[in-house]
């Protein structure tokens, strides 16, 4: 079979155990390679959009807003302003004469209509080109309406998704430090980097509550502007998905001396470790005791059923392609827990250190890949005879077309996969795809009438 990788891309693929570890990443996507990556704006939008009582206005032509309308499953327990797609829908005249007036009028109109607690204004590619002064417009409306109006410098072409995370963190940093922090317990944390997909943050918050820990701000799942404004009163930042919100944690460490720990809520091992790490930080035997009790209780609830799935799934093969590599680590462990082998793992935006670590925890022969594309991914799936592929919506049809199982582990998912219950859901998801009888009929496993022999 012909090599599927473009020559320029070979340095971004590593086969574990064949050569000493080497991979190149953090490169701009190659023109014409159909990258699975999105843009800066996408990164910012992912991080900020779960803040449910803020107005999220996309300043640009219509597409950028319309493609991000309610596409992700970040739930809110109250207001749902974040589920609407607001745009200035720039027209030709705006592009020629500038869009500042329209932006200002749209902002005022929407703030009057929805009474949000704050407004985020996202710039898209052409705003960067036509030179609208977002800062100035935001400042003006902020004074007029007396709520924070914050520009998000997310012009799509100014880097990749990670630059978008950074822009989102910069935007949130402007809120932090503006709220009242008295009455916050000394055993308090902010949850960073959980977006409450399918209600996950509610589970996590419940765990912390049972340990006797106060959560000051959700950043950003089921997030609220006023919570974020007082986030600097927390004793610790607990950061998941380091790519997305680590920058904010660092800023808060610098600005307010709040330390942070990195955790993952995915899989039994990592979830338990996250709770223990937090308990350890507060150095309080009671909290630790409660954490242990909680873990025991929760694991006991799910263990028998997981064993059942493990029995069925043993030795099946998994491939992973996710946005950020942090998730990949947890997935590798989670697959191990249910007896499966990971034969390929990759991400859109991992760092060299991430990939090195992945190489260490995976078996020889495992393919490790940065910023891949449909052609490569499909060839890996076939080569490794994969049983299930974990990825996002863009990866799904690649798997399905080839008759390979699929599990959605992206922001669009509607199943909670974090926490202890999440591990069970994950096992169930994998099981219900891998064990489906439909694979009997797909071409790679069967012939069909009319096939030439």
């Amino acid at each position: 079979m012909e090599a599927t990788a473009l020559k320029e891309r070979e340095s971004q693929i590593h086969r574990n155990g064949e050569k000493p570890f080497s991979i190149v990443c953090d490169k701009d996507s190659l023109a014409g390679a159909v990258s699975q990556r999105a843009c800066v704006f996408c990164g910012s939008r992912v991080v900020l959009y779960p803040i449910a009582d803020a107005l999220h206005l996309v300043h640009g032509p219509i597409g950028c807003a319309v493609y991000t309308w309610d596409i992700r499953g970040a739930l809110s327990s109250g207001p749902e302003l974040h589920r609407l797609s607001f745009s200035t829908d720039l027209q030709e005249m705006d592009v020629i004469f500038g869009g500042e007036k329209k932006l200002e009028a749209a902002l005022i109109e929407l703030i009057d209509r929805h009474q949000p607690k704050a407004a985020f204004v996202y710039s898209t590619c052409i705003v960067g080109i036509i030179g609208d002064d977002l800062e100035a417009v935001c400042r003006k409306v902020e004074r007029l309406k007396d709520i924070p109006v914050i520009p998000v410098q997310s012009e799509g072409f100014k880097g990749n998704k990670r630059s978008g995370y950074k822009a989102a963190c910069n935007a949130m940093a402007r809120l932090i430090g503006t709220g009242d922090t008295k009455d916050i317990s000394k055993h308090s944390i902010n949850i960073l980097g959980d977006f409450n997909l399918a209600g996950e943050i509610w589970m996590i918050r419940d765990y912390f509550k049972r340990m006797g820990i106060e959560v000051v701000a959700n950043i950003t799942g089921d997030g609220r502007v006023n919570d974020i404004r007082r986030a600097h009163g927390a004793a610790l930042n607990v950061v998941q998905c380091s790519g997305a919100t680590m920058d904010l944690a660092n800023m808060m460490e610098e600005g307010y001396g709040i330390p942070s720990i990195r955790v993952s809520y995915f899989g039994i091992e990592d979830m338990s470790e996250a709770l223990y790490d937090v308990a350890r930080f507060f150095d309080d035997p009671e909290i630790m005791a409660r954490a242990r009790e909680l873990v025991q209780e929760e694991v006991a609830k799910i263990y028998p059923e997981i064993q059942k799935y493990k029995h069925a799934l043993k030795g099946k093969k998994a491939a992973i392609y996710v946005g950020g590599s942090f998730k990949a680590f947890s997935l590798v462990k989670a697959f191990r827990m249910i007896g499966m082998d990971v034969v390929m793992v990759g991400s859109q935006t991992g760092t060299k250190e991430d990939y090195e670590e992945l190489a260490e925890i995976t078996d020889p022969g495992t393919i490790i890949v940065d910023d891949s594309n449909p052609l490569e991914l499909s060839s890996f799936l076939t080569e490794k005879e994969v049983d299930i592929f974990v990825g996002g919506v863009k990866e799904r049809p690649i798997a399905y077309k080839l008759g390979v199982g699929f599990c959605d582990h992206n922001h669009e998912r509607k199943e909670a996969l974090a926490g202890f219950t999440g591990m069970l859901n994950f096992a169930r998801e994998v099981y219900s795809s891998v064990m489906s009888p439909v694979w009997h009929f797909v071409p790679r496993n069967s012939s069909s009438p009319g096939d030439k022999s």
Partner: protein
Amino acid sequence: MSKMPNYISTTNACKLCRPLGAALAFRGIEGAVPYLHGSQGCATYMRRYIISHFNEPIDIASSSLSEKHAVYGGAANLKLGLKNVTSKYHPQLIGIATTCLTETIGDDVPRILQEYAKEEGTGQTLPLNVHVSTPSYAGSHMEGFHGAVKSVVEQLATAAPTKRSINLLPGLVSSADYRYLSEIMQDFGLSSTILPDLSETLDGPALMEYEKIPQGGTPLAAIRGMGGARATIEFGRTMNTNKHGSGGLSLQEHFACPNHCLGLPLGIGETDRLFALLETLSSRTTPHKYVQERGRLVDSYVDGHKYVFGKRAIIYGDEDLVVGLTAFLAEIGIKPVLCASGGKSGLLSEAVAAVTKGILGADEMPRVLEGMDFFDIAAEAEQLGPDLLVGHSKGAPLARKLNIPLIRVGFPIHDRIGGQRLLHLGYRGAQMLFDTVTNSLIEKKQNDSPIGYSYM
């Protein structure tokens, strides 16, 4: 009519962006790869959006412009991207659409393509390319789709020796619709070129090996021969041909190939018009199969008429689809109360009046509004008290709020599977629609009733 009041902001748009339409059209050409000249995000977003409807792979390449290209122009990246797509996909055709970014920085795509051909073309045959200008700040996905079709015929069709063939330009319809149209043409004994053709490329079978470019699509040889066709049939009463021209008009102008512009054949009235034209073009009477389909359809209209009579419908989406659906709904006795689109052809009102003539009285005409978003539609709905919504799946939140059925049609269908297999057109499509609409209304009544009737 334009919407009132005229809000400045847009909330939950009822349109998509222009290059998306172009990419879809290019996807319906054999051996073609759609290519967006712009930054990476646009292409990725559109792929994601299209995938969620079709559940099929769709590769859309991108120039992946970064900041420095935005400042110095995207020529180098466009050329490099074309080279990479060529070496990786071996396409027969690359369909290049611009984006807001490259339109704003003013990249001269035709000139860059000429340079590229000069630089790369010696010693090897490059894939053909077609380019279309698609700034989203001046038009929606429908203009993008029709614009791509027009560019394809203008840049590829030749004055081929006269064949007996018919060109059919259906616009953006479902894969099932393209299949059915092709069946109709065959049954009339008409050889035809359907452009584009998404019947296979976005509704393909399960495969052993991933195809870089899916099978199917309008063959390039057929496209080249379109100049020699006997006639063109083009669907779309709201194509603003004064402003944008159209594929059919271009063929008429350049090759004296007569253009017949019809509405999307939705419902009996509009479909009859198509069949009348096909009878003339083929000099045949309508095949028995379709006489039967029509007969069964009329019979079912009679069987079901009471369940639907007088029900109030809001219809939204692409303008031409809205027109066709309104024609269909009016002819079964449903009262269209609002026809809304995010598009702005300026022709929607006129078209709705034309297709409902003789069925709706002057005092029964729906409100017809262009440039609408879902905030506007929801506000109208509050006044109008509809019994059902008819449109794509982005109306689902509104239907839920109003607690009324949503009849899912068109593109996108993101909350059900099989959007590409929905049949809308012709007698058969009307049959599917009629059964769906009627049963949804019966089901609603049944569910809301305190008594669990098991007879209608």
